[in-house]
């Protein structure tokens, strides 16, 4: 209905036994939005990402991606709408070389395995694209290494490379800066700032420097609910948010 919306959540909830990890979240991301999702540990941010990406089924509510209701679609179908994500704990194909990891992401982006079957010429083009991504993310030296042998920072970069390989319209990153060194953080920030302006970004990040540098709006969650939403300045200065973060993020 609204073709400027990338992602719309309505009353999205998820229950784990007796715990309502995500509790009636509404969110609206217009095309090209850069949204930070903040909140203390256990607020339900990762669970929300899992709901958006389809890794977990909804308990209730609905999710619309680029105008299409995807609430009931499995995760792999949502990718076709242009959704890509990374994981808080790096999930890479540890037994496969880095280049193959990226190529697999490209295969997925090109419409899945069935399209990839003929192989041949297309696989060379794919390899070139993988190399370009690797250069961009500083992985080029490691192309032949098994992904499992990468350093922590390397795995984070690979995560990002795999997500970007999908040429997403909506990119959801779950704490991409966690465990990175200051220089790696700077690289990450630069990369995020260079993203295509049409792309919508939902970024979970505890590091305010990274989060506020690349986003123009903020949603704050606590105990599964959205407790504040607004511009970075408003939200960061609000009492509520400072209370929430006292003893968690700064403690």
């Amino acid at each position, binding site marked *: 209905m609204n073709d400027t919306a990338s992602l719309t959540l309505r*009353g999205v*909830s998820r229950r784990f036994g007796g715990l*309502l990890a995500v*509790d*009636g979240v509404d969110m609206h991301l217009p095309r090209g939005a850069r949204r930070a999702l903040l909140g203390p540990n256990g607020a339900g941010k990762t669970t929300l990402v899992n709901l958006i990406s389809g890794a977990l*089924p*909804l*308990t*209730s509510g609905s999710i619309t991606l680029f105008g299409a209701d995807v*609430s*009931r679609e499995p995760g792999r179908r949502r990718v076709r709408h242009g959704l890509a994500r990374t994981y808080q704990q790096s999930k890479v194909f540890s037994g496969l070389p880095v280049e193959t990891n990226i190529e697999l992401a490209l295969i997925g982006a090109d419409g899945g395995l069935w399209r990839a079957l003929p192989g041949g010429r297309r696989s060379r083009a794919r390899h070139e694209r993988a190399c370009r991504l690797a250069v961009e993310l500083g992985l080029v030296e490691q192309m032949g290494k098994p992904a499992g042998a990468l350093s922590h920072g390397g795995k984070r970069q690979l995560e990002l490379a795999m997500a970007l390989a999908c040429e997403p319209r909506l990119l959801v990153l779950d704490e991409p800066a966690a465990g990175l060194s200051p220089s790696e953080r700077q690289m990450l920030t630069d990369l995020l700032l260079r993203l295509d302006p049409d792309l919508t970004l939902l970024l979970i990040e505890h590091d305010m420097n990274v989060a506020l540098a690349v986003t123009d709006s903020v949603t704050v969650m606590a105990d599964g609910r959205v407790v504040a939403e607004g511009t970075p300045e408003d939200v960061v200065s609000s009492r509520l948010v400072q209370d929430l973060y006292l003893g968690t993020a700064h403690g």
Partner: protein
Amino acid sequence: MAVGAAPPTSRFPAVSRGRVLWTAGGIAVLALTVRELVAAPAVFVTTVLDGLTTAGLYFLVASGFTLIFGLLRVTNLAHGSFYLAGGYVGYSLREATGNWFLALAGAAVAVALLGLLFQLTVLRLVGGDPLRESLVTIGLSVVVADMTLAVWGGSSLDITIPPFLGSTIEVHGLIYSRFRLALLGLALLVGFGLWVLLHRTRLGMTIRAGVDDPLILATSGVNVPLVLSFVFGLGSLMAGLAGVAGGSYLSLSQGEDARYLLVSLLVVIVGGLGSVPGAVVGSVVVGLVQAFAQVHLPTYSVLVTFGVMIVILAVRPRGVLGGAE
């Protein structure tokens, strides 16, 4: 707060499909029951009793299997061999002493020792990798099969039933074997004993906590290796017990090990891995299905049992009591 009032669940295919299938299954079972009851009530009752006594035997075998899996995460693929070894040892004891109960106890202890020995030597060496541990147990099953063949030969043997259980019992014109009822009683007794152990003792609490979350064991301050060995020994003991019971009610022969391994697998796959209540449900389902299949489709009884397992798996990938995915 709005979330508390859940929206119509039918929007979510996973839930509704399961419900529809369960309802359909329930109706089918009910319809079949009514039909059988009307057609031949006596046959029906006998078949149900057959199914339940078979279930008792299956429970004896499978509860040990599921207990071991629950705590050690080892699928003991030699469990069928433990059953067979128990039966053979029981046979020899019965022949030597003439006392069936002595044979039962002796065989159970012997198999428990065999299991313990294996766990303490080989499994400990493998250390922690469930996949490799399971692969090692299959090697043991070959050795045990070969050894039992060497000692007891290839022809089938019967353990003589104690005389006072050898006859039949008659209630309202229904005739039924005393021994089979006693077998059911034994299963109930063992089940009750397990329940007491798991729910009424400190050791049992530890075991249950470990089944839920293996990490808890390590941090609970108990002697973990000891508890693991105890459970492996207990699981083996049950297999030995079942071997004597089963060898008295059916007979013992080479190949029975594979049969009871399959039974254990089916029971835990149907009932859910690692849980004793799951083993109860699984044995009753498998036992009843098999009893009815034997009456109506004797040639295909294995097929029918298997088909039921597949249908259940399609609805509940982790078994009836295995928890949601």
